[in-house]
């Protein structure tokens, strides 16, 4: 009796559900079509970076740089007004994706910038392909990112770009036996592979490949293994932000006095943290694409303006990535005369080249990745502050990962 009524109610309920489902879908498609926007006079740029969590410094630097660029170059390009929308994805890929989706669908953003870590950039790749929105990676550094979508460009750097020259310098300077110590995720694995391959091809030996977990890294046991292996040098990559902890543990274990040379990519001696790391970093040789002490008029002006606008905060390579990302957008818009259509912008961005504060840069038209100078630097004290002083330049380095594929 009751069960019959219950059943029939449920039947009715499911019938109602399915009809309403169908009508709803129909309604929303209709509404969606009506809702598409008219021609925009404002071009919205979405900057999605982690402003909280372990990569918070990335977000801080990138937001400051992007805002500085707009402040210096004006918020109008080719007759269109530029609006920068900054969003915090807290370093979580699903948040990045949701924010990107909201920016595209709700705010009608024409370009997306940012992406502080590889998984964040990868999360948005299918989105940019589907929505045909250019995605400019200004921070993440794993080589394969630009291959995930024909709409992805990069203005940061790739780990292979920085690691290969480091290996080559090492080989030229008497380093035969190496241990690599990297953080276990995309960029770290890139660095490990390309550094090790270059060393081995050049006649050296890689004794051990150590990988430290990304979350809660505890360097102590790994550093102990480095010490026990007693190589000529240890090659290190840790994401920017962990450099300080690493260096502290490095010296605590007495490795700085053990005769094992520390070579690294510039993420370890990040300009943002270098002062805090202190004198224990003196003499560390590393390779990177940007140093705050880079000797060019553009850079000097940039550093000064950045410090002034941000309470004396020194810009680092993250800031430059965002700064150049904005530059790329502006130059592309100038080239397309304000046309912000995705595919048009992509065509305009390919092959773009200019003199950035880091040196000359260009966007490779085939890979959409950045070609730039890589500098070999040593940490030295200049006017009482620690800087990565460039002493050798390798010009126009293309990303080796994609170059090897040709």
């Amino acid at each position, binding site marked *: 009796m009751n069960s019959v009524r219950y059943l029939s109610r449920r039947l009715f309920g499911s019938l109602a559900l399915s009809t309403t489902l169908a009508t709803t879908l129909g309604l929303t498609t209709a509404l969606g079509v009506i809702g598409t926007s008219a021609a925009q006079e404002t071009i919205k740029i979405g900057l999605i970076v982690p402003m909280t969590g*372990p990569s918070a410094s990335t977000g801080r630097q990138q937001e400051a740089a992007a805002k500085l660029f707009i402040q210096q170059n004006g918020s109008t390009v080719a007759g269109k007004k530029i609006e920068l929308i900054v969003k915090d994805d807290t370093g979580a890929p699903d948040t990045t994706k949701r924010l990107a989706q909201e920016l595209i669908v709700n705010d009608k953003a024409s370009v997306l910038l940012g992406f502080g870590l590889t998984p964040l950039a990868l999360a948005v790749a299918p989105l940019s392909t589907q929505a045909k929105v250019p995605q400019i990676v200004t921070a993440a550094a794993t080589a394969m990112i630009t291959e995930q979508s024909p709409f992805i460009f990069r203005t940061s750097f790739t780990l292979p770009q920085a690691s290969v020259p480091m290996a080559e310098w090492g080989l030229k300077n008497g380093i035969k036996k190496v241990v690599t110590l990297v953080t276990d995720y995309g960029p770290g694995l890139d660095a490990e592979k390309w550094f090790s391959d270059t060393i081995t091809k050049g006649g050296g030996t890689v004794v051990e490949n150590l990988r430290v977990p990304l979350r*809660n890294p505890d360097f*102590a*046991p*790994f550093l102990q*293994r480095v010490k026990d292996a007693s190589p000529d040098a240890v090659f290190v990559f840790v994401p920017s932000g962990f450099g*300080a902890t690493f260096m502290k543990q490095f010296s*605590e274990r*007495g490795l700085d006095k053990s005769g094992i040379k520390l070579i690294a990519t510039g993420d370890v001696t990040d300009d943002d943290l270098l002062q*805090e790391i202190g004198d224990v970093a003196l003499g560390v040789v590393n390779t990177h694409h940007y140093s705050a002490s880079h000797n060019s008029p553009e850079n000097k002006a940039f550093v000064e303006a950045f410090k002034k606008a941000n309470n004396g905060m020194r810009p680092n390579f993250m800031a430059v990535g965002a700064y150049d990302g904005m530059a790329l957008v502006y130059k592309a818009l100038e080239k397309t005369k304000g046309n912000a259509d995705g595919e048009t912008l992509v065509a305009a961005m390919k092959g773009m080249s200019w003199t950035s504060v880091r040196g000359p840069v260009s966007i490779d038209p085939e890979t959409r990745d950045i070609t730039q100078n890589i500098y070999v630097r040593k940490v030295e004290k200049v006017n009482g502050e620690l800087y990565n002083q460039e002493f050798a330049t390798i010009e126009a380095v293309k990303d080796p990962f994609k170059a090897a594929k040709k």
Partner: protein
Amino acid sequence: MVTILFDGIAYGMLLFVLACGLTVTMGLMNFINLSHGAFALAGGYVTAALTQKAGLPFLLCLPLAFLFSAVLGMLAEKLLYRRLYQRSHLDQVLFTIGIVFMTVAAVDYLIGSQQQSIHLPDWLRGRLDLLGGSIGVYRLFIIVLCGVLALAIQWLLSHTRFGSQLRASVDDPRVARGLGIPVNQVFAVTFALGCGLAGLGGALGADLLGMDPTFPIKFMIYFLIVVTVGGTSGIMGTFFAALLLGIADVAGKYYVPQIGAFVIYALMVAVLILRPQGLFTRGGSR
């Protein structure tokens, strides 16, 4: 190998100092306190501020960190935690998680999310060669200091009136009350001491473990593991559990880096399967 042993012992000692307050809280009052790490955080930050900004010598900062966290603990117990002793474990878990979230966010907001660095005196830097392995002077200092503390706590428990009152209360609060022991007061004092110890542990561990706003969440799990494995009926259980876990963790990460952190969790689950009340518990009534 010996070096790894030393590293493990140092880590374990640190865990002990950090976690022993939690043992008493859980054992005595059956109060699940997931915010214990917040008091360690307080100690660490206070020490960082005092050594960096005020330039106080590190050794002086240690008792100050202890006092600061102890006072904080006393206030927190009186104002907040006391209401929750009779509540369900779910409520306690939720409340203390809430406190942790608030603390983490507040510290992040007020001070920022970067790691705090302690200015260690020169005599604590460097390494020593000992018994075939080398050990950092700082780690040796930690081992010695925490060892002394462990002995002091044990002495307190076994040779003072307060200690015997505490032990009685842990064994059976109802009977203890029946005998006229002021269990609530005993607990209040013990809670404060436990928080003070956590603060001291935070001060000592800041250089080794890294002190940033997410410290309470990152290490809460380790404290809980130490307490669960060691059992809540005595400090010695915590001591041995902490040592065991410290050595297992460091050795695991050194010898089998592929599964490093896994070791500690697997150990805990194994212990819980075999002896759910902890490895070193005496049979007590509850």
